[in-house]
């Protein structure tokens, strides 16, 4: 499927010849294999997202608007993406164009006094964080890592983050935004719409965030967000994360008012009590996340040793697993999470440490010894504060995906972790489809919203994306986890976006979506989204990530 020369010229006139291409080789660099990480659809072998008609790189809001108007004129679907994290950022149809937003990469303003930044789509978390730290501020880095776009997270996703307990989800930090709606009109929200600056996201009357965001984020299916203001929060550390060490064992030596620990408990019940107590205590929980279990309960100690020792590689993993000391330390971290305390003063951090120690003592918890070693501690601080190691998700075999999806209050969710872990462990033992990591690769945030309230967990599954047998076996495993998860209240996030995209990489049809939604107990939200789309996207140029259900007549 290709675009006619006449239509191509119309688009070319908008962005210039250097910023548009329909070269098949170029377009193939914008497709994503469906067997790597689909976050969260489950893998499918030998399938790719569509190539589309062309890719364009707009350089301004005006160019974006002109492109969207042309798309409406020719009924061509479009999707803008900044950093293309998983297939959600890719187009879902061949009769569609990709907007690669990399030319719009400016931090337009950092308002130090009022603690916000105004950014364009291709500003990534790492860049914003580095600039914010220079003025004593920080930004929420999402779980997908610092190479992702905060604007995309804030405007078109939820922005789940290990920093959420202290700094909020990225979507919670969204202030004013500029939005080229699917019909080609520009909307400037809140104070910006009244030419009063970027400080406020809404004006009087109903809020617009729900309209543009949809239930779980529109994932680029509802127009293009071209600028937004993001709320920042204090950073009591140095103005840059000076690092030393040798790759991959980079580490940051931070002042004593920034402390990182791995805290653990002997049972999930005690773990839940500890989380509640931390939330209630008022200590910062600047970062609170079960991070390193992404490597697996049985492997994480050895993996941390490898990552902090430049002389070691993953080939040393099996040998290191036989080390009794690594085994002991690994056992210590069986039910753990990572926490960073940030004191605004030395007195503050001393108080926070005392509170944490008291909570651990009273709930039977402790600080894991391996993670208190100075080198490991400094490595971990840099890892967690920057979240720049997303490549490690793929380290075992080239592919990964999360499954289950336990959410809720700690005393509800934490004990279920063991059920999910046991289910996976059994599959690991009975099959050879994915890495045997101990069943428990349950990553999770210890504070789904600012201040706490909920934990969220997903069980990483590491498969070989180049092996049809491994991919198919993992697909079958996810079929099983979906069923088990729904029956036992463990969630089924491995199929979360299967409502929007099929295994073959293409969009679900309206009929397919309706069939799936008809089984839901509360379909009304999707009926409202249908009505919103009818108004804002009458030509249906967004893809199926904006989930809709035609209301019954």
């Amino acid at each position, binding site marked *: 499927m290709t675009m006619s020369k006449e239509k191509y010229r119309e688009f070319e006139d908008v962005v210039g010849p250097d910023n548009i291409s329909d070269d098949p080789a170029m377009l193939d660099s914008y497709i994503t294999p469906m067997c790597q990480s689909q976050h969260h659809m489950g893998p499918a072998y030998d399938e790719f997202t569509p190539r589309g008609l062309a890719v364009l790189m707009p350089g301004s809001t005006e160019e974006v608007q002109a492109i969207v108007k042309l798309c409406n004129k020719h009924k061509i679907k479009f999707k803008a993406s900044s950093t293309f994290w998983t297939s959600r950022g890719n187009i879902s149809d*061949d009769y569609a164009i990709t907007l690669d937003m990399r030319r719009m990469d400016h931090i337009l303003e950092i308002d130090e006094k009022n603690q916000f930044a105004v950014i364009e789509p291709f500003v990534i978390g790492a860049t914003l964080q580095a600039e914010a730290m220079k003025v004593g501020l920080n930004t929420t880095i999402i779980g997908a890592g610092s190479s992702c776009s905060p604007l995309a997270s804030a405007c078109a996703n939820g922005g789940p983050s290990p920093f959420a307990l202290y700094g909020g989800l990225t979507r919670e930090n969204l202030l004013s935004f500029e939005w080229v709606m699917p019909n080609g009109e520009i909307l400037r929200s809140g104070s910006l719409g009244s030419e009063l600056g970027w400080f406020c996201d809404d004006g009087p009357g109903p809020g617009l965030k729900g309209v543009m965001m949809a239930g779980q984020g529109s994932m680029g299916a509802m127009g293009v967000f071209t600028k937004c203001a993001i709320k920042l929060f204090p950073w009591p550390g140095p103005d840059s994360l000076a690092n030393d060490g040798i790759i991959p064992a980079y580490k940051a030596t931070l002042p004593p008012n920034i402390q990182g620990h791995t805290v653990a408990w002997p049972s999930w019940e005690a773990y839940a009590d500890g989380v509640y107590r931390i939330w209630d205590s008022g200590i910062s929980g600047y970062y609170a996340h079960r991070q390193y279990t992404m490597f697996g309960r049985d492997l994480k100690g050895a993996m941390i040793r490898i990552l902090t020792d430049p002389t070691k590689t993953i080939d040393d993993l099996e040998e290191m697993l036989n080390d009794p000391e690594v085994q002991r330390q690994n056992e210590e971290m069986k039910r753990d999470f990572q926490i960073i305390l940030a004191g605004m003063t030395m007195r503050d951090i001393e108080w926070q440490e005392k509170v944490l120690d008291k909570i651990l003592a009273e709930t039977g918890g402790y600080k894991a010894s391996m993670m208190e070693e100075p080198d490991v501690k400094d490595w971990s601080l840099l890892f967690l504060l920057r979240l720049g190691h997303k490549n490690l998700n793929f380290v075992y075999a080239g592919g990964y995906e999360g499954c289950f999806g336990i959410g809720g209050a700690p005393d509800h969710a934490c004990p279920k972790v063991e059920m999910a872990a046991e289910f996976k462990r059994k599959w690991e033992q009975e099959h050879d489809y994915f890495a045997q990591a101990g069943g428990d690769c349950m990553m999770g945030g210890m504070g789904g919203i600012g201040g706490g309230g909920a934990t969220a967990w997903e069980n990483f599954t590491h498969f070989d994306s180049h092996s049809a047998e491994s991919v198919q076996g993992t697909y079958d495993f996810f079929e099983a986890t979906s069923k088990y998860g729904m029956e036992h209240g463990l969630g089924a996030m491995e199929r979360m976006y299967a409502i929007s995209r099929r295994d*073959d990489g293409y969009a679900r*049809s309206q009929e397919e979506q309706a069939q799936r939604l008809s089984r839901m107990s509360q379909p009304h939200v999707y009926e409202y989204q249908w009505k919103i789309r009818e108004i804002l996207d009458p030509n249906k140029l967004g893809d199926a990530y904006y989930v809709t259900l035609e209301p019954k007549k």
Partner: protein
Amino acid sequence: MYEIAGVHHVAIGVKDLETMESFYTGLLGFQTTPQGSPAGPQEIMSGITRGVTPVFAARMLSQGTDAIVVEFLQMVTPVPRPIRRDFRYGDIGANKMAVAVSDVNELYSELKNKVDFCFSPRSVELPGFGAYNFVYCKDPEGNLIEFVSGEKLPTDNKIDGVRWVGISVTDLDRSLTFYQKYTGFDTLFVKPHEHFSGLVDEVSGSKQTKVRSCILASGKGGGMVELFEVLEPRGRSIPSYTMWGDFGYLQTCMICKNVPEIAAYFENEGLEILLELQRMPGPEVSFTYVRDPDGVPLEFLSFGKPG
């Protein structure tokens, strides 16, 4: 001087030659012609399989002298795979054959328990054609076949051969211009229309399918081509990894005089050449492959000495 005289054959990559041959000969009355070949290396085609010498068996089936020949190819090397896991009506490329029949309703009644029909027969009035009676079915490997009857489509037999090949395109106007200019189709047998909209929902998998189509013929005779643009829901491109010989419709072949001259013309016009001019050793057969604006493979074939 070259001439192009319509479609000679349509090629389909198949998984099981015997099953397919049995379906087409046993149920639809096709006859196997002697032009097939057992499995063997075909060095001359290596340009189309990215340098690998393809090994395949071919079987040619036809119905009457004027009908389009159906060529089944069973690939051995490279190992074939499905072009797509599932079929959608609007998927770009050659994706159906239209078989003329004396009476669609009668045929449906006779075969409905033996053939996988997509729906029961329908009729629509097409300007300049009159009543167009049609029904779709799938062959044992899922390839789409349309049976058509109408006053403008006289037949000698109950099932009277493949009259046209359906090619799904992105932009009907663009493709119409291309096929008229380069493939010798100088006559609009059925002018562009949208009357099939809503009538092919079962094969498109969507309600209220919107489709524009036309049928092109050559004044010199031969098989025709139907071009159709499915506006809603849009189909999919031919996957970039598709290899000639994969399962499904592969190409449409035009019969010509003087392919060497055509090949030179296409090159001069800047068409995308898929396989450069080839001459068969021995018999005076030459052919070349090009792509249409959507990347759909088209073969141009001539027998005998260039005129």
